């Protein structure tokens, strides 16, 4: 009786050459290790994930104004919320969001050093065949509304004219899933 290492089952098969038996044992062992999930990982995966996403990304503070006074919102927060809002628009996927800013006024009237948001560039991938102009208008409106919610009255400076929507890519399938690129 010998062991069939390729399947892990016991068989009465004839004995293969020594070299290939070595390889078969290692291949079988590697396969078992590949299929193995360490119990400890199952136990700690959620905890590790929750710790990881609390890490703060380096990000510029942006000037914002609420009814109670000025405050700061980081650029990363703006990008994150914009992505989530635009994600609700069908047939497009956000590729990149660039927040354009200017330095605060020297008289200090716009907070303590936070940059002032002046525009947002949204790069999109769209599904092949989508009518682009209405889509771009929708994305521009959604982004503009979200900016106003996040930055308050400061958002008036982020004019619609400064909200660029750049159609960077076209996909054959659903761009939110990551279908093959059609053309750039």
């Amino acid at each position, binding site marked *: 009786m010998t062991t069939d290492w390729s399947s892990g089952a016991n068989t009465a098969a004839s004995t293969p050459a020594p070299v290939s038996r070595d390889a078969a*044992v290692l291949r079988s062992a*590697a396969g078992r290790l590949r299929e*193995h999930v360490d119990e400890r990982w199952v136990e700690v995966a959620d905890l590790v994930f929750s710790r990881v996403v609390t890490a703060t990304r380096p990000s510029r503070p942006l000037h914002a104004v609420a009814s109670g006074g000025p405050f700061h919102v980081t650029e990363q927060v703006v990008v994150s919320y914009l992505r989530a809002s635009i994600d609700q628009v069908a047939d497009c996927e956000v590729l990149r969001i660039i927040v354009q800013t200017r330095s605060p006024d020297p008289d200090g009237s716009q907070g303590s050093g936070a940059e002032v948001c002046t525009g947002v560039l949204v790069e999109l991938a769209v599904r092949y065949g989508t009518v682009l102009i209405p889509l771009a208008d929708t994305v521009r409106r959604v982004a503009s509304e979200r900016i106003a919610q996040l930055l308050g009255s400061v958002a008036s400076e982020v004019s619609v004219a400064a909200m660029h929507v750049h159609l960077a890519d076209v996909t054959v399938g659903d761009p939110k899933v990551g279908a093959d690129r059609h053309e750039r």
Partner: protein
Amino acid sequence: MEALARVGEMASLRSDEVLARRSGLGDRVAFAELVGRHGASLYRYAVRMLDGDHHAGEDAVQEALTKAWIHLGTFRGDSALKTWLFRLVANECLSARRRHRPRPVDDQTLTEVPTNQGSAPEEVTVATDLRRALDVALVELPWRQRASWMLREVEQLSYAEIAEVLQTSPAVVRGQLHRARANLADRMEQWR
């Protein structure tokens, strides 16, 4: 809850490339999917590279994933995401080994000393199975051989990808793999 479930289902359909991009834009659901997809492999690799120390492996994976989360916004996809993640983990494992420095090891010396000093097959079989015997054999391998073998045979990365993870050349990887296979075959001799 249904909306959340739909978001999760959608994430599972997405490619690594799309998930990486969305994670870079702050999408935690996308990053959770990436961790779910690759976390077990990264952890498996880290623990074996750290001589079976699960706590050290957990720390290495957590550090690597934290760096991934922070830097995904600038990830340009020059390499596959999986390769990039393994590179982050490999670097963390190397740092951990340097911090602890268990003992100086010379690749060549260990390569030339076949070990039959490990547990007898009966003992290993009683306590574990073939996989655990492999774990025991892996601990005895020099670091680069172990890393090359794990990445090739278990994680099924290409020579070029392994070279990228270990920051060396495919030719060096080929050599390390050759020696690793010979050493492991020797250590697993009782399992033929």
